[in-house]
């Protein structure tokens, strides 16, 4: 199952990934990272399709995308 | 190699190549455009890079980029062009990039004129750009010396990782004189250029930069530069004395072409029984302060006369050297006027005669007072 790993201390809480996620499974946390920003977090990894749009749009390379087993190329990147 | 008759501008160009500097960026400006014209043909012969930029400002920044590779790079220009280069020169000093810049000076300020002058002394010696930095400044007075100092400039630039400027008035660029080039430019050992930007292969990335937002880092960098300039003061001061002896009544201080004119004047005065000596600084920074003072304070020297093709710029450094221990006079022509030996002779005769007159008037005074008593 694909999933994302969000680095709390790189995220600056810009929320662009939340808007970008087609599955709408990202939200902003209630606690803050080391820089004092509310960081993004995945709240329903079961519905993550590994499309990487969150990571593509993240201006701080705070999101890593992983998967298990096969992964499909949805677009050339 | 045998002597060859060459124009200053072309000799300077060839000297650079002899010193292994095969990367030249330029912009046309009288009175030194022949350097570019010569190198436009010559650089391809030696597999060098020749590029005419869109402005001296751009050219100086190309120099920064080229110098970062660690190769020997240079440019030549003249007064207004050198003004346009000041920003990049300050950056190269801050980033400790070795480069050589030649200024074949013309009359200023502003568009000024195109004839020889020495009115860029302050700009080159006191730093024309912003920040705590200096340039090592060399001033040749003959075409052969321009060749020798041009080659030396590349060595010193690498030795101190600092821009070096060679300044000559228009004559140095336009005159033709026989010159000799060494078969091989012999140099002392130089440290490895481990600072050069060569691509982060097998090492951490490097940055050629002068920005230090943290004031402590910037201060450290500035004091590091300062230490280099102190080293230059210890090891790189160069000057020449001409007919200086304990018979001299007057001591001249002049550099570049002006010094050669003074030598002619000195020879002429000598034939008239007036002994005058010349102190010629070759490095304008580091300036031979102590050496000038040592000569000026000698008892036989009645007065020091500074002669420049400007309205008195090196004069301030000579005053700093002598600290009021001896009276200093100035004679200068500027705007492109090159003083003739006769002018210098007449100026000195005027100074000597005044003294003689003052001796006579003193004598008269004493005789008058005697009469009164």
């Amino acid at each position, binding site marked *: 199952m694909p999933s994302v790993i969000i680095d709390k201390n790189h995220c600056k809480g810009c929320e662009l990934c939340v*808007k970008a996620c087609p599955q709408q499974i990202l939200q902003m946390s209630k606690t803050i990272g080391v820089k004092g920003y509310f960081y993004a977090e995945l709240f329903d990894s079961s519905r993550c399709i*590994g499309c990487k749009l969150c990571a593509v*749009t993240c201006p701080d390379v705070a999101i890593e995308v992983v998967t298990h087993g096969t992964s499909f190329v949805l677009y050339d990147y | 190699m045998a002597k060859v008759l060459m124009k200053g501008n072309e000799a300077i160009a060839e000297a650079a190549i002899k010193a292994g500097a095969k990367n030249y*960026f330029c912009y046309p400006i009288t009175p030194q455009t022949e350097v570019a014209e010569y190198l436009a043909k010559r650089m391809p012969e030696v597999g060098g890079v020749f590029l005419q930029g869109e402005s001296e400002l751009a050219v100086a920044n190309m120099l920064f980029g080229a110098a970062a590779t660690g190769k020997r790079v240079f440019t030549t220009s003249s007064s207004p062009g050198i003004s346009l280069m000041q920003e990049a020169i300050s950056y190269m000093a801050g980033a400790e990039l070795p480069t050589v810049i030649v200024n074949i000076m013309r009359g200023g300020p502003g568009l000024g004129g195109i004839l020889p002058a020495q009115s860029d002394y302050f700009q080159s010696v006191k730093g024309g750009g912003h920040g705590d930095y200096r340039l090592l400044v060399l001033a040749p007075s003959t075409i052969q010396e321009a060749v020798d100092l041009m080659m030396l400039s590349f060595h010193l630039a690498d030795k101190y990782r600092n821009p070096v400027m060679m300044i000559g008035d228009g004559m140095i660029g336009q005159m033709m004189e026989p010159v000799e080039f060494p078969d091989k430019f012999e140099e002392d050992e130089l440290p490895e250029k481990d600072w050069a930007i060569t691509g982060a292969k097998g090492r951490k990335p490097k940055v050629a930069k002068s920005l230090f937002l943290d004031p402590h880092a910037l201060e450290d960098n500035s004091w590091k530069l300062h230490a280099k300039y102190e080293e230059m003061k210890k090891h790189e001061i160069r000057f020449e004395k001409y007919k200086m002896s304990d018979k001299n009544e007057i001591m001249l201080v002049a550099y570049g072409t002006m010094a050669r004119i003074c030598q002619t004047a000195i020879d002429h005065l000598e034939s008239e029984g007036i002994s005058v000596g010349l102190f010629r600084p070759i490095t304008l920074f580091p300036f031979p302060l102590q050496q000038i003072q040592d000569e000026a304070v000698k008892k036989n020297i009645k007065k020091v006369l500074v002669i420049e093709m400007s309205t008195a710029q090196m004069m301030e450094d000579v005053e700093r050297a002598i600290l009021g221990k001896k009276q200093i006079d100035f004679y200068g022509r500027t705007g492109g006027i090159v003083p003739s030996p006769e002018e210098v002779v007449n100026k000195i005769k005027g100074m000597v005669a005044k003294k003689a007159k003052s001796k006579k008037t003193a004598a008269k005074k004493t005789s008058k007072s005697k009469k009164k008593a």
Partner: protein
Amino acid sequence: MSIKEKTIFARPDSMTDVVTHYCPGCTHGVIHRLVAEVIDEMGLREQAVGVAPVGCSVLAYNYFNTDFLEAPHGRAPALATGFKRLRPDMTVFTYQGDGDLISIGMSEIMHAANRGEKFTTIFVNNAIYGMTGGQMAPTTLQGQITSTCPAGRDLDKTGHPIRMVELLSGLVTPMYLERVSVHSPRHIIQAKKAVRKAFEYQNANKCFSLVEVLSTCPTNWGQTPEEATDWLEKNMLSYYPLGVKKDSFGEGGDR
């Protein structure tokens, strides 16, 4: 038998693991990543040299894992020219903002492009001066409010915003010019193709290449990152149309 976990998106090697100083939502970070990804994919990291401008991205060398030069404001194309002429074997790119490239550096970029210097320029157009706190830039739009045109840009006083790739495309020298944007994932994905093409042209020693990247500046536009992407979409795309402006060595090229 547990299925091995595979990483399908991660920080490129050519990018350092440093938290950037850019404001939250500022798309400089995206553009940095695109350039770093392309450098990785083409295996150019160890021979790449970036030239940083003066502006928000003056500290770009802290975020790239490549050698860098730091240029005086507007002069990056001249530094890149000097370096590339001596080291044509290396991959040289300048990374510049609109104030740096169009305002003070107009002469340098025009002549470097016209000489056909074989380096790549990544030109970030966010219609404002970012680092100095939001002043009017040559690309500031009509009526757009900045700290030096507080009543909105008045074209009668300041002239019109400059369309740089169109301006450059008027030069006869063969080159590759494209304008892209990074205000949405789709645009980012397409933008990367242009960045890749630019570096390919350099790598094949073909021509000068420049990619203009429309970018957001939430802080100085006075908007949230999300609002800024919408503002860009509504206001900048019409004035700064995306697409290839000149591709001398492409299929329909003018070569």
